[in-house]
């Protein structure tokens, strides 16, 4: 007799646990407020990234098209993947001294792991993280970017 009771108990407890699980999913089925899907390309306007979001490495320029990069190459040394290449050229300063000027700050986004060592170690705070994250391209070469804008120059105060 005990075996029969145990058998029936098994069935009822089993069914009870099943119903408990179904209650959880059933409740979510009838509560549309809990839906967490974001309709991504449509919600571009409302989409706001966090201030510290690391989308890509950029070099901020001010209104006069001036940046902070002296071309010292510390970011290039610190980058673990070789995603930064610095090309410098020599220029004559007004005082008649030969100084080093950044020609191209080449940044390979496709190799970058966002370890933030370049941004952190830059002595003149020339680099920062941008918020642009839509980096999908068909041509890998498009991910190689030149961070200093054409015709830009070094800010006077930075030395």
């Amino acid at each position: 007799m005990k075996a029969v009771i145990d058998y029936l108990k098994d069935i009822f407890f089993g069914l009870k646990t099943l119903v408990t699980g179904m209650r959880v999913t059933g409740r979510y089925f009838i509560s549309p407020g809990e839906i967490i899907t974001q309709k991504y390309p449509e919600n571009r306007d409302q989409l706001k990234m966090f201030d510290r979001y690391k989308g890509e490495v950029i070099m901020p320029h001010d209104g006069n098209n001036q940046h902070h990069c002296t071309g010292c190459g510390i970011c290039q040394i610190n980058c673990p993947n070789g995603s930064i290449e610095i090309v410098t050229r020599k220029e004559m300063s007004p005082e008649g001294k030969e100084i080093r000027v950044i020609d191209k700050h080449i940044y390979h986004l496709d190799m970058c792991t966002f370890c933030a060592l370049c941004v952190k170690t830059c002595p003149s705070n020339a680099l920062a993280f941008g918020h642009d994250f839509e980096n999908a391209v068909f041509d890998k070469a498009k991910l190689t970017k030149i961070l200093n804008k054409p015709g830009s120059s070094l800010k006077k105060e930075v030395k």
Partner: protein
Amino acid sequence: MTFNIYDFTELTRSIDDGLKAVMSPGWALFTELVLIGLVFLILYALIGLFLVYAERKVCAFIQNRLGPNRVGPVGIFQTIADLIKLLMKELIPIKNADKLLFNIAPFIVIIASFMAIAAIPFAKGLHAIDFNIGIFYVIAVSSLGVVGILLAGWSSNSKYSLIGAMRSGAQVISYELSVGLSLLTIVVFAGTMQLSGIIESQANGWWIFKGHIPAMVAFVVFLIASTAETNRGPFDLAEAESELTAGFHTEYSGIKFAFFFLAEFMNMFIVASMAVTIFLGGWMPLHFGTGNLFNHIMDFIPPLVWFFGKTFVVIYIMMWFKWTFPRLRIDQLLTLEWKYLLPINLFNILFVAFLTLMGWHF
């Protein structure tokens, strides 16, 4: 020719008479068969497309998602787009596969589900064939599909497929018993195997209400067993994607895969409509008591709406199962059948026979 939405007997008879008037009886029968075939093909495609969409929406809402929402308003045309994609996909030929069986298998599966749909009464008089052994026919035909699954698994020449097919074989053979026996309880109550007869016997109340506890038990057993028979989760061992990647249809692609997919959904529809026909009064409206206003309002809703409405409720419950429970293991699956469902069913049927003998039901 009169079109009555509550009774299709007149309509079908007038079509029959009209055809017989212009051609010989043989040709008339042939034309009728072709007509019914066309109607069912269209119905089949529509229900299949709708069920795939419904499943995706149901599972999305259960999982806090939106589901398909890009193609058409709220994504209604998503399944049509998917169908077009599947039609255009390459049919990958399998090296060392048994070509003939490999190509035949999806058709066997789909034909089996196609045959079963013939016996289902959609409304009064809307019946392809009204066998006097309707239940028997449906049980027999719906289990034919497993032959196709076995062939698919065997002919793919893939080890995963073979395991899936063997699982499916063991599963369907065992659960066939429970499906049959749980339907038999109602046959004992109703005293007929004819589907239209069973529906008529529910005019004064559905069997699930007037059949006392045994009918409830039989209904629960039927739901579980038929979910297992259609290879749906939590009994989807034949395609268990976390173990066997996709089970018996691992090697299928394009439209052949779509056939398996469609057949699964159609089997679900057939099983649900059987549950509705036998336990939930088929196309009969819901009645409480006799002759009150509520019953009149219920009578006003056409039987087709009743039938499809109830069917989709049952289908929703099966989807709810699938998206809640983890999958069983093969030995537990067989334990559930042979140690739990079958003994319960046998006792249940004995009890029902006793009840009927003593005349203790409504």
